Each structure stands twice: as C-alpha cells, then as structure tokens.
C-alpha cells in the first residue's frame, strides 16, 4: 500500500556549530515528514561526533567570528539543544542512520569506539553512495 519512504542524504564535512545545527534540524524535518535519513560523517563533521569532543564549547566558523559570542549567548539563554541532541531526538523518532567515514578514521588512527553511540556504523564512500543513490534530496554540509 504505502510507497517506499523518501530519503534525505547528507554528507557532513563541517564541524562547526553553525553548520551542524542544520544537520540536526533538517534530519528532524525529514523524519517528521516520514523520510528516511542517511548521514555520512567525514573529516571535521566526524570529529564533532568523537567522544573527546563532547562537552567542549561550541566551535564557530571563523567566517562568523564577529557574531560568535552573541550567538553563543543566545543559544545558552534560550536553552537551545545542541545539534547532537537534536539529531538524537530525530533518531529516536525516525529512521536515521549515521555512518563514520573510514578514510578519515584511517588517516587519524580512529576506531568506531572513538565515537558516540549516535554513529551506527562505519562506511566507505562507495557504500554510502550506494545507500544515498536513491535519495530525493542530497546535501553536502
């Protein structure tokens, strides 16, 4: 009866909060609209999901350095959940799969155990592309 769920694929390369926020928010919107979500974390995006990065103050892109203190203050005052918390909520409510880039891990000598539990598995670019190829929306962030 029901059609196959539509899919959102995201390649997350960036590790600053200004770019990680959309990852959590877009994943939430996709889940709300009944879409599956595939996320490929690579380089700086992957490092944001490392266990050692948790609890660190949010990093902003230098492009917005002049506004970073104001923005950090607003996030705190309004009690805005972190991108990772937002993504966790999306994952609890829908089909969100998160993969760690094996190439980044090889370069940095990392294993799956270095990352938080939101990371489901590791994947090479070929495997991810195979999962993402039927996505209606694909984003590089």
């Amino acid at each position, binding site marked *: 009866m029901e059609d196959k769920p539509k899919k959102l694929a995201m390649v997350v390369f960036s590790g600053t909060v200004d770019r990680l926020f959309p990852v959590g928010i877009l994943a939430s919107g996709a889940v*709300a609209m009944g879409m599956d979500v595939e996320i490929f974390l690579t380089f700086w995006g992957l490092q944001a999901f490392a266990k050692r990065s948790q609890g660190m103050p949010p990093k902003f892109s230098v492009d917005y350095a002049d506004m970073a203190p104001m923005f950090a203050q607003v996030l705190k005052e309004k009690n805005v959940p972190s991108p990772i918390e937002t993504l966790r909520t999306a994952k609890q409510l829908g089909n969100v799969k998160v993969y760690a880039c094996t190439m980044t891990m090889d370069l940095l000598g990392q294993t799956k155990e270095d990352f938080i539990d939101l990371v489901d598995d590791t994947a090479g670019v070929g495997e991810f592309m195979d999962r993402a190829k039927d996505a209606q929306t694909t984003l590089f962030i």
Partner: protein
Amino acid sequence: MIQESVAAARIVDARGSVCPGPLMALIGAVREQGVGDVIAVYSTDTGSRKDIPLWVQKAGHELVGTYDRGGYTEFVVRKKR
C-alpha cells in the same frame, strides 16, 4: 475566546523550545498515546504554526483546533491511527 471543549489525554508544554522542538515533542507524544486520544501541545515557536498542521495532515491525524492563547499557541490533535 473560544473555549476548548475536548479533554486532552496529554498536554505537551513545549513553550520556550525552538524549532523543531515542539513538533518533535508532539510526534513523540502522539506515538506514545493510544488511537483516539487527544493531545494538546503549547508552543511559542513561530514555525510550529505551519509545521504542526502540516505534520498532522501528513501523518493522518486530526487537527481539532489551533488556539491563540496570548503569548503562545495551543494545538489540539486527535490521534487517528
């Protein structure tokens, strides 16, 4: 002001939560309730005014009403399936 006459089985107070917080809180609550239950969600997030009715329609539930409560909006949803 129109008074809400449908008794909510559950109230989700998501005031102060930013987009997509209230929507996600509603989705979680609807999932936990039984079919036929009425769920009310309070939101101060502007995006909710469009996102919540859209989700309710897409997910196949019923939007009993949207009420401006002065400073926040109350959405009343009946779980249909």
